[in-house]
Each structure stands twice: as C-alpha cells, then as structure tokens.
C-alpha cells in the first residue's frame, strides 16, 4: 500500500466531509477514492469515517489519527523537496535573501551559524525587500527569505516571528531628545522618514497606523532608506525616522561631531546615545512602541534540512545580535459589526 497516497485521501475526505468533493480536489474519480479509504481502514484496523447516504463524517478514532497523518504528509513533502534539490543538481546550493535593514552583525552571525551546520552547502545570498522576496518565493526562484510582517503569507511556511521595537532618530537639539522615551504624539511638528512603500506596503501602512494610534499623523512622509541619507534629512529637514536601537550604533565612528553639542546631551551616557555623532540621537518610543516583525519564510512543503537550518540560524542571529524578541500577544481586538465573523 502506498501509505502517503492513502493518507492524502484520508486527509482530503476528512477536510471535505464529502467523497465527491474530496475526489475532485484530488483529481480522481470517486470509486477509487472510496476503495482507497476502505483499504486504509482495513490495513489500519480502524474505522475512520461514518458514512450515511447523504454525508460522511470522521469518527473519533479518525480524528485522533488526522493530526499525525497531516504531519506525516508534511514530512514527506520536505523529503521530496530535499530529493528535488539533489536531483536538480542544486545539491550544495541554497538561494536565500535578507532584507536590507538587518545590522551587519546579524548578517554575519546568520552566515556563521548556517555554515557551522552546512559547511558543504553553497549559499547564494541576496539583499531583497519583502516585496521582491515574496515574488521570488512564489516563483520558486528563492528557497528561503527573511520577510517583514505583515505581508501576504499565502502559500508560505514561517519560522518564529521576532520583534524589533522601533525608536525614533531625531536631531540632538530637538526638545524631545532630552526625554528618556519620546511619546509619538510629541512628534506632530515633524515629517516622518520611511522606506519607499513598494518595498513592504503592508508594513509601511501599518507603521503609519501605529503612529496615528499614538497621536502622530505626520503632515508629510519623506522616503529614504540609506543611513546617511536618513541622517541628512533628520539633521536638516525637520523630519524624524523610526529605527531599531542598533541603527544608532551603525553610524561610522568618525562621523563629524555636532558643531553645537547639546548641553543636555553631553555627559549623559543614556541609552542609544550615538557614539560618534552627537548631532543625531536615538530615543525609545514611550508606551506601546511600533515594531518591525521578522520571520524566515519559505514555500509550503519545501522546508528541507537546509531551509530549516537557515531559518534557525536567522532566528538565532536576530535574537542574539539585533535584540529581537518573540512577538508579543496582540493588543485587544474589538471586532466591529461589519466584521461579519465572530469567535
């Protein structure tokens, strides 16, 4: 008996509660599907379904076996993915991508961690936005990526979602720079600097919503991503940027010092203090700060050992070098009547 094929039939009938629909989904006729289920029941010595003239329902025993059957099918997919890699001459090649906003130490730690487990594998690493990664994952041009959430996760499997809280980069002489933590609503006179929307549209919208939720609706949004460019805008354009704490450390140590060091700033070794450039400072956001949420992502059913190792290395590197922490439970959700659904 081809166990995998029979288990696919079992899961399909269990999920559709209907032989005809399950057969359609599997692309087969109904009689052979019924025969397979009967054969499986005989082999296992377990009755999986109750059949009446109108419908088919899973038995208590069937329900007990369903989760294990799904797991076995997922493992077999993973096995086939590994076999594909070998067959297609891709043995030794993993195509992976990272977003452009990870600290250098994180990228290095990830590569080290991955090489320790798969020294024989060649790693083809790309720097790609979430949008570009999703497109390539869907086209199977990429084996694994590290994406920003929220994003469209249809057809993807995910590693653990990790959170990097964002603070605010602002001019050292701004009054808010004297605060230990900056309330978002205090930024209302400033424009906001954000990455171009197309690189991660849902995250872009989500960050603007988080700012609005905190009482900060910027009069205009300026687009920039490179550290120096963003710093220039912060210094001269009455604009602030959202960034994780490590961004503050990333500035070159020989960056020019402010011509007019802020009295309140000097001498205070506060958190996020720029080591080299006192003209731009990083401060935590007070209260419920906005965050970046990352996870590894790969196409469903293609999580072989190499992919898994990369996902593990990415999670480990984010935790140990980028201050990422497991995602916290969401805020309360008040469903409104137009939601139509209810739990």
């Amino acid at each position, binding site marked *: 008996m081809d166990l995998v094929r029979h288990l696919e039939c079992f899961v399909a009938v269990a999920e*559709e*509660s209907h032989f005809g629909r399950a057969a359609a989904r599997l692309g087969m006729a109904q009689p052979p599907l019924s025969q397979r289920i009967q054969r499986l029941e005989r082999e296992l010595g377990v009755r999986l379904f109750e059949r009446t003239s109108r419908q088919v329902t899973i038995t208590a025993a069937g329900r007990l076996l369903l989760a294990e059957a799904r797991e076995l099918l997922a493992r077999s997919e993973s096995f086939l993915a590994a076999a594909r890699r070998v067959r297609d001459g891709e043995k030794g090649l993993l195509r992976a991508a990272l977003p452009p906003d990870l600290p250098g130490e994180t990228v290095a730690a990830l590569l080290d961690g991955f090489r320790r487990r798969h020294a024989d594998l060649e790693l083809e690493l790309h720097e790609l936005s979430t949008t570009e990664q999703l497109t390539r994952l869907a086209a199977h041009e990429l084996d694994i990526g590290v994406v920003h959430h929220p994003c469209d*996760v249809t057809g993807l499997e995910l590693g653990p979602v990790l959170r990097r809280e964002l603070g605010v980069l602002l001019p050292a002489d701004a009054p808010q720079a004297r605060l230990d933590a900056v309330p978002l609503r205090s930024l209302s006179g400033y424009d906001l600097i954000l990455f171009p929307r197309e690189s991660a*549209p*849902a995250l872009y919208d989500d960050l603007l*919503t988080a700012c609005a939720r905190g009482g900060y609706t910027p009069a205009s949004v300026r687009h920039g991503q490179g550290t120096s460019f963003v710093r220039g805008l912060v210094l001269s354009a009455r604009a602030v940027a959202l960034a994780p704490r490590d961004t503050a450390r990333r500035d070159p140590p020989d960056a020019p010092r402010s011509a007019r060091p802020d009295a309140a700033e000097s001498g205070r070794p506060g958190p996020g203090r720029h080591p080299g450039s006192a003209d731009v400072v990083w401060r935590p956001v007070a209260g419920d700060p906005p965050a970046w949420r990352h996870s590894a992502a790969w196409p469903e059913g293609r999580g072989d050992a190499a992919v898994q190792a990369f996902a593990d290395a990415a999670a480990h590197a984010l935790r140990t070098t980028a201050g990422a922490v497991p995602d916290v439970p*969401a805020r309360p*959700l008040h469903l409104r009547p137009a939601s*139509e659904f209810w739990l």
Partner: protein
Amino acid sequence: MTDALTRIRAAFADAGVTGRLHALDIDTGAQLDEGADQPVCTASVHKLCLLVALHREAAAGRLDLTERVDCPPDARTKGPTGLAVMLDSARLSLRDLAYLMIAVSDNAAADLLLGRVGLDTVNAATDRLGLTRTRAVHTFGEMLATLKEDAGPGGAGALTDPHVIARLRALDPARTNRSTPREMTRLLAAVWRDEAGTAEHCAAMRRLLALQVWPHRLASGFPFDDVHVAGKTGTLPTVRNEVGVVEYPDGGRYAVAVFTRTANPAAALPAADAVIGTAARLAVDGLRARQATG
C-alpha cells in the same frame, strides 16, 4: 479597457490588497476581467446563493416564505449583527430571516434558513445556473468553528499572528465555501434578468440586496444619489468581498464581483474596504466608456 485594468491593479496595490474582479454589463454582456476565474473564498457572499436556493424552494412549493419559525436564543450561530446578538426568543417568517441575512449578514438567520434548505439544495441551485465552481461545503456556524479551532487558545487576538493566518482553513478556497468572481456576476445577472427564478421571486431578491446596510465597500465607490447599488458583502480575517449590481439612471446595469485579500491581518482597514468601491467604479466606467465609443 486596458487602461481600466491598469488603474484597477494600481488601486488594489495602493490599498494593500490582492484583488480579483469581474464586471459584467448585464444587458450587452460586455465584461472586464482581473483574475475573474481564480477560486475565491466567498465567506458571507455565499448568503446570496442561499437566498437564491430559498426562493427556488418557495417557487417549487416546497416551502412558504411567510411561514414563521421559532428562533430560540440558545444555540444561535454567532455573529456581530441581527439575531446573532439579540437576547430573547423571536418568531420570524422565512422571508424576514432572509432580510436579516442579507441586510446585516446575520449569521444566525442564515443558519436557520440553511437548516431548513440544506447545503445540497444550495449547491443544486447554483448548479442549475451553471455555476460549476461555486460550492457550499459547510454552514456559517461550521465555518466559524474552523476559524475558532484554527485560531487556537489565543482566540480572536491570535488572528493577527502570521502563523495563524497561514493555517486558517477558512481562507483556503479548496477547503471552504467558494466560487469565482465570474460565477458571482453570472448569478447576479440571473437575478437581475429574472432568470434565477420567477419575476416575482427575482424582484423579492433584488429588494433584499438593495436593503443591505453597509456603505463602506461597493457603495462607497458610487457616491451619486441617482445611482442605485445593491449587493452582499463577505468578510473573514484578511478577506474582504462584495458582489452587487450598480444601476445608472440611463438604464445601464452592471454586475460587479470583487474579492480581496489584505497582507495585513488587522480587522480595521478602511482603505481595503473602500478600494472595493473604487475598483468597481473603475470597472463600470470602463464598460460605460466602451459603450459610449461603440
């Protein structure tokens, strides 16, 4: 027409959604297609199929729409509107249950009707109209049960977790109530052309669809007092749908079906609701422009 499609795609992208759309001129058959044959989760849009089946049963004399049924407060299917939130027992006619089901998407009213009509009859009704890819596989209560089961102990709060979103059976067209945008405009056209039942029954269905209360989706795209909009929405985490008919005073009638998925699982995303109206208007304008230029 290409221009309309380009603008529709841009509107979907601006709103942060993946959208599928079909628009059909009910009288000329002219159409506009953006992923119109993709399988989609219907969610509460399937209440339209149930409405058609209900009227078909009534037309065949198998039930009486004025018959009153008891709606005890316990064991009602959950939902945020209508009988699903009302506290006391009620006794309503089948057609008034249908009103609640369409006007406010009342899940309790829908499942009372579905209990009466049966899933097989709903599928038989859509089969008869040639909608081979439209299938109801469970009641609204059963669909919500999969949502609850897949969300796990975190409840509704877990619905913003990407892992949870990725595993929701209710979002997989292969495992839940489903259709395609093209089949839904075909169904609407049948209701508007008196082909989904007798003229009297079709008029009753059109009346209910015009009584839907929601202003935020399809209707938001047509802020014109002289334009008539009727439709039925459908919503699940990341899913926002509406199918309906837009009628202009010059007699133009257009069936539009828009099915969207957001990347963001947040429940409140007004731009994602509004783009359903925007995309529908761009589509209808495209069809009307084609007619004007012959």
